[in-house]
Structure formats: C-alpha cells, structure tokens
C-alpha cells in the first residue's frame, strides 16, 4: 500500500516534471506565453506567493504563473499512467510574419500531425530542441545503497534542483537573446518565435544535427531516470538572426544647417575651385557644390556598413541556416523555401528601411527646366564645365524672369534618383533631384566615377523664391548632371542668381563683367543678353550714360539726342537727374522698355566715342580763355551800364 502510494507520488512527480520543464522552456522562449511574467520581482513574502499562485504552479517550489500553452501541450503526457514518451520541444524561428504564432503540440497519439492550431506554410528554423524524458529501466532496480535516494522526498528535492538549474540554463543559451528582442520591441517585428511539441520528432537536418548539446544530470527514480538535454545553435548562428535595432542609423540629409535646408551654402570656395563668384550668391537657389574625392571607395561588404545604409539588413544571413525539408510536414521539398534564412530586419514600421533617396524624393520637388538662352558667363561655364559631367547635347534655356509666375509645374519633374544608383558610403552627397529629362523615366545608373565628377547637390527651390516667380528656378542645373541627354549645367541660372543678388548692391551702376563682355562680343549676343539679363544691364547702361554726361561739355543751351531718345540737357543738372530722366523714359511699357534698353545700351556701348566727339566739337567752338575774355567784356559792359545809369539819375536830380 505504501509502495503503491509512493509509486503514485513518483508518477505524479514525473508527470509534473514534464509539465514544469515545458513551462520553463516556453516561458523563456515564447513571448506572451505566460500570463504572469517571471520578470516581476519575487520578493521575500512567502504568503503572497503561496496565496496568489495556484497549486499546480507551486510544483517544485517554483512559481512561474499560468501558461496555457504549456498546459495544453503537455496534456497528452498527463493522461493516465504508463510509459511516458519523451517530450521533444522545438523552439522555432519563424520569419514569415511579425505576429507571434502559437503552435500546438503533437501528443503521443498524434506523432506526425499538427494538433489544432494555425496552418503553416513553413516550419521555420529550429533554434533549440529540448528533450525531456523518463528513461525507464528494463527492470526495477533494487539496492539498499540508494534506497533513501529513491524515496519520494529525495526524488522531489533533486527534481527541484534540476528544475532550478534548467530555469537558469535556459537564460544562458543564445536563443534567449532573440526572446529578449521579441519581448523588448514594442514595434511590429518581422520574425516570431514558435514552438512545437513532439512525441516522435523528425530527425534534425545535417546542419541542425551539428548543434551543440548540453545535458543535465539526471534524477534517479525507482522506475528509471528523469533527464533533460538540449541541442542548441551556436552563438554566432543565432547572432546572425538577430534583428536590427529599431532605430537604424541612417543619413539625415535634412538636418538643420544642411545644404538641403539651408540653400545659402552654395558653391563655397572651399568645396569648389572654379571661378564661380561666391560673394554674389545669396543662396536662393538649391545648388550646392560639394567636392567628392575622385576615388570613390566601393561599398563595403561588412554587416556594419550595410547597417548604416539600411539596405543590407536582409543580407545578414548564414549560409548554413537552411529551413528543414522534412517530408513529415506534408509538403513537397520544392514547395519549401530553401533560401537561406534572412535575419529579422527591422523593428520599424517598414519592412525595409526607406532608402534615403526616396525620402528626399518625398521631400523635394524641383521645378521643371525651362528653355533659356545659352549662358552668358564664359568664365563660369568653363570653370563649372571642368567639374560637371557633360551629358548635354543641347543647351537648356532658362525661363525669362518676367514670364515665370507662381510655383513651378512640378508635375513635369522627372522622378528623382533611385537609391540603388547611389550605393555609396555615406560621406558622399548625392543630388536628390531628377536624373532624367522626362517624367517617369528611370534615372540611369550612376557610376562611381560619375559621382566623383558630379558634385552638385540640388535642393528644392527656396519657398520664397518660388512664390516670387520672377526668377526662374535653376532647372537647368537640376537636370544637369546625371546622364540626361537633354540636360546641361546651365550657367545662366547661376548667372541669374547673380543678377538678382546685384540688386542688393549699393552701387547698381557699377561696371561689371557683363559690360566688358558686351563691349567685346557681337551685337547679337548683346541683344540676347539685354533681353534676358534685364535690369542689370539697364542699370549699367544708365551708368554709362551718366558717365557720358559727366564728361560732356558744359551746357550750351542746346539738346542732343541719345540714339533716338530725347534728352534735354538743359534740364539735366546732375547725373542722378539724368538717370531719373532716362529711367522715366525707360519705364514700363515692355516693348518700349526693351527698345530703350537696347538704345541705352547701344548708347552706352558707344559712349566713349561720343564723348570724344563732343570734346572735339567744344574745342572747335570756343576755348576757356576765350570764354574768360568774353566774361571780362560782359563785366565791362555791366560796369558801363551801371555808371551810365548813375550819371543819368544824378543829372535828373
């Protein structure tokens, strides 16, 4: 009677040992498998622990909380006495979904089938295989030496120690790291940990069979031996499966002060060695020149580098990690995915990190290119051409400032550069703008050498600029660099920028390079210049006119025409007045303005010759000495008249 009671208690210990071990394993591997997490501090208060925990949970003096999965999966081992088959628990890594997948267990009655649970498409990767068994002896052992050890208290004590050891060991294995990641991440993840409980498990694959094995000292019982062992993947294999951090290191292109947000950084002298004038650039355009070393290093193949880009997360894989292709799962091997297991990627909201160029694409919308006359600055063009790829076959014109109104038509923008064209180390700065001349075109792939040559980073136009509308966006610049056959770097855009900046200068009549070039260039070019350049040349012409007037001979009471325009020199007392007169005449009827501009410019162009002629005419008429003599004569006459008047008055009195 006592023996049978002891045997029944021993049997109960064995059964509960199976359940407790399964509970420990699932609680440390499957997220949300236990309602009462063991991470809660268990403080020194036995009474609360004893009152809150169920009787079943107090087995082996280890309170873990409820675990429905363990209870349900271990149910087949609870049924009735008898031989207890080994319980094999496979911890699986499932990459197919971000949600936790709960898999049931195949009890002793259903060794080769899935129990109730979700249908699955792939088994996943076996991270660990735990084996809990009670190896029965062929015949009951008899011996007085170990009789006391085979008593129920001794069995229970040793089983308790084994359970403690198992609890600690589960947290020392590499797979516990994945469990930490799965439980610590609040965002959706692209992997899940599952389990499968077998009574007759399928054999491990060769790569899985090579896993390390750790065994625990068994607990002797009168009928056999309670044993626990685990086959687990090595640390490096599990490390390769780890997810990337939620916050992926990536280049933040739009940080405060960056060229994309602060378009004032253009063509800095440090980064650009051309002859682009830096001082006159007010930074209203989105053109930056960033020097890039000609020797562009190839993208490193290391995991760390790919981490930084975010593009290679899925490439973290071990060649030995292959999903099993056991036929017991009812699917043909061909239907299985034998591709290497890719690691769980990111815990962000996106399955893959958004490439940087796409992010910039979402932010930046560049104005379309508009035709404009060829550039006007030879030096600028030549200097820029040295650093920019010459992909253009025809110049791209820039719209006239007066004709551009409102926001640019962004619908005509070609798509921005795809990220795959820019798989370069982060130190490079890429143009985020369109690469092709047509909408919807796929930008050409960019080579490293092209990137090294092309140093312009194009930013979206300044909102202030776009609202003004009178200045064309540097569309020519935008579509310049990356293989578009219709695009060339437009100096005129930069030139246009210079023009607008000159408005801020204190001396609008200063002679600049344009005037000098106008003097030496053909007339047709000047025509285009003045038509396109606008106010700058007009001011220059006015300045030239003023200089002409300054050097003109003294007022002689006669007017002379200035290339068709009437200027009353008598009314002109100062160069400023002259300027105002000319300006008033050149105001605002566009056609007349242009005509006056041309005429004024033509006059300015001819100014030196006209002054010379005037001087000659003055000399032919009268010299200064003669004028002084005439003045003396007038004085004498005046004196005479005054004396005559005085004598007449005296005689009357």
């Amino acid at each position, binding site marked *: 009677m006592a023996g049978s009671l002891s045997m029944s208690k021993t049997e109960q210990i064995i059964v509960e040992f199976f359940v407790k071990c399964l509970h420990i394993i699932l609680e440390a591997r499957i997220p949300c498998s236990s309602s009462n997490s*063991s*991470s*809660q*501090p*268990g*403080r*020194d208060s*036995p009474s609360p*622990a*004893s009152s809150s*925990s169920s009787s079943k949970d*107090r087995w082996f*003096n*280890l*309170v*873990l909380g409820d675990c429905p999965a363990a209870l349900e999966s271990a149910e087949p081992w609870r049924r009735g006495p008898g031989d207890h088959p080994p319980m094999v628990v496979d911890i699986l890594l499932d990459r197919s979904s971000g949600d936790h997948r709960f898999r049931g267990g195949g009890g002793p009655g259903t060794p080769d089938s899935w129990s109730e649970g979700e249908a699955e498409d792939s088994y996943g990767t076996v991270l660990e295989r735990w084996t809990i068994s009670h190896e029965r002896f062929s015949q009951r052992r008899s011996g007085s030496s170990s009789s006391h*050890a085979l008593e129920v*208290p*001794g069995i229970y*004590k*040793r089983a*308790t*120690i*084994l359970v*403690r*050891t198992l*609890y*600690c*060991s589960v*947290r*020392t294995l590499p797979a*516990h790291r994945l469990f*930490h990641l799965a439980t610590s991440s609040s965002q959706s993840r692209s992997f899940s940990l599952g389990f499968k409980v077998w009574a007759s498990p399928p054999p491990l694959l060769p790569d899985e069979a090579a896993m390390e094995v750790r065994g*625990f*000292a068994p607990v002797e019982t009168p009928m056999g031996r309670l044993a626990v062992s685990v086959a687990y993947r090595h640390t490096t294999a599990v490390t390769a499966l780890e997810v990337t951090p939620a916050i992926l290191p990536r280049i933040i292109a739009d940080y405060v002060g960056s060229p994309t947000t602060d378009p004032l950084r253009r063509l800095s002298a440090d980064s650009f060695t051309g002859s682009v004038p830096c001082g006159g650039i007010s930074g209203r355009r989105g053109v930056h020149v960033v020097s890039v070393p000609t020797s562009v290093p190839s993208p490193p193949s290391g995991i760390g580098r790919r981490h930084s880009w975010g593009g290679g997360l899925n490439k973290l894989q071990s060649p030995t990690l292959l999903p099993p292709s056991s036929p017991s799962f009812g699917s043909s091997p061909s239907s299985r995915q034998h591709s290497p297991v890719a690691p769980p990627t990111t815990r962000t909201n996106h399955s893959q990190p958004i490439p940087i160029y796409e992010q910039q694409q979402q932010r930046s919308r560049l104005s379309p290119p508009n035709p404009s006359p060829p550039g006007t600055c030879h030096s600028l063009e030549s200097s820029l051409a040295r650093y920019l790829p010459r992909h253009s076959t025809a110049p791209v014109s820039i719209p006239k400032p007066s004709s551009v109104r409102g926001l640019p038509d962004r619908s005509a923008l070609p798509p921005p550069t795809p990220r795959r064209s820019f798989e370069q180390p982060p130190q490079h700065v890429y143009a985020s703008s369109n690469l092709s001349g047509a909408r919807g075109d796929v930008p050409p792939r960019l080579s490293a050498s092209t990137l090294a040559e092309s140093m312009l980073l194009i930013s979206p136009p300044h909102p202030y600029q776009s609202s003004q509308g009178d200045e064309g966006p540097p569309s020519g610049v935008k579509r310049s660099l990356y293989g578009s056959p219709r695009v060339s770097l437009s100096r005129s855009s930069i030139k246009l920028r210079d023009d607008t900046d000159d408005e801020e200068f204190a001396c609008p009549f200063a002679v600049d390079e344009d005037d000098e070039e106008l003097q030496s260039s053909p007339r047709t070019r000047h025509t285009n210049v003045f038509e396109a350049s606008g106010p700058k040349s007009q001011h220059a012409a006015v300045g030239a006119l003023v200089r002409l007037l300054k050097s003109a001979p003294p007022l002689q009471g006669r007017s002379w025409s200035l290339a068709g325009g009437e200027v009353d020199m008598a009314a002109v007392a100062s160069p400023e007045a002259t300027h105002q007169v000319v300006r008033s005449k050149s105001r605002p009827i566009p056609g007349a303005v242009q005509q006056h501009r041309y005429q004024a410019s033509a006059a300015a162009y001819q100014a030196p010759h006209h002054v010379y002629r005037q001087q000659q005419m003055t000399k032919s008429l009268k010299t200064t000495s003669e004028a002084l003599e005439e003045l003396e004569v007038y004085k004498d006459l005046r004196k005479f008249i005054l004396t005559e008047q005085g004598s007449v008055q005296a005689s009357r009195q």
Partner: protein
Amino acid sequence: MNCEIFHLRELDVEPYQIREVLRCILHTVMFNRALGLVRPHDVDSELFDLTYVQCGDLTFEKKMEEKIDQLIAWVEKHPNKKITVCLSFYETRSKQNAWFGHKMERLYWEQWYVTLNTTVQQSHLRSKPHHDKLGDALDLMTDERSKRHALLESGLKEVMLQILQQVNEKKDHVPPVTSQDVVSFPYEISIPSSSDSSFGMDMFKRMLQTGPPTMLG
C-alpha cells in the same frame, strides 16, 4: 556529511566590476540552493550581456550587498590583490559538550569560493611615453579596456555554466528541506577582513566553530 567545496574559475576584474560580478555569481548559487517557495526574478546585468536569476529573498540580498560594500572598501585599501569570497551553506547542530553543555555548531556541507584578481589599470600615457598623440593613446586604452571587459564577460559566463553544472551534478549532499523560508538553508558570506588578517584566519575560526570533520555523513 561531506562538505562539497567548489573553486570557481579566477576572474580578473577592475574595482568597479566587483559588485556586478559577485552579484551574478552569488545570486546564481543561491537560486539553485534556495529550495523554498520561490518566485524567480530575472535580472539583466548592468555591465555584462547576461541574465541571472534572483531568488527574491530580501534578507539575502541585503546581506550580500553589505558584504560587497565591505569588500570594495577593503579593496580600495589593498589594491591589486587577489581576493576570495566564500559562500557557505551549513546546518546547525547542537553538540553536547561534556564540559560546556550544549553548543551549537555549524556543519558546512557546501562552499563556493569565488576568486577575483583585482587590477587597477595604469594610464597608458605613462606606460607608453612614445605615444605622442593623445588620441592614439586614448584609443589604445579604450581598446584594451574593451578587450579586458570582453574577456571578463566570457569568463563570467563560463563561471555561471560551471555553477549550473556542478550545482546539479552533486545533489546528494544537500540536506533535506525543513524550512518554509525561501532560502531553506542557512548560509554565510565570507570576505577578506579589514584587519589585514589573511583569509586563513577566517578558516581557522570556522574550524574552531565547526570542530573536526566527521567521517560519517
């Protein structure tokens, strides 16, 4: 009853690492020897990439922290020395002495010796005066420190595996559980004393208390 003595692997630690290392080791041993009703508490180490388990007994935790504080103070006075911390489990028995009556004696049935080699790292600027650049020296110092840290972490993990293996292999000497407390067996934490006495003196005192080892278990 034989006393099982376990000498754990020696670890090279810096003074700031002593507390965390001892926490990992002592809590792991105690959790496997506290056979009372336990609600385990997982703790992620602050310094190392590992998780150890606490039994949840506040008394033990308090006593352990006090001992660690005393040890750290002792290490500050005696730098660069090998220190040994011993966690002992015993049971008390009343021994009847014909001359002095009943006397309570301690029977140690298990002892865990943790040996730590405390090293205070010298500045590499002084050790390598040929480093002209401060940045290189600092980088070198940082690299070496990280290497030592990695070595210590791997060594600590090995120590924990050693504990789990030995605590489970030898269970027959564990006395029966008679207490309802979480920590079911009385224990003692021994550290080097502040009186500069060698650790052997503590052992001598223990021998006087426990008496000669018995042959019968």
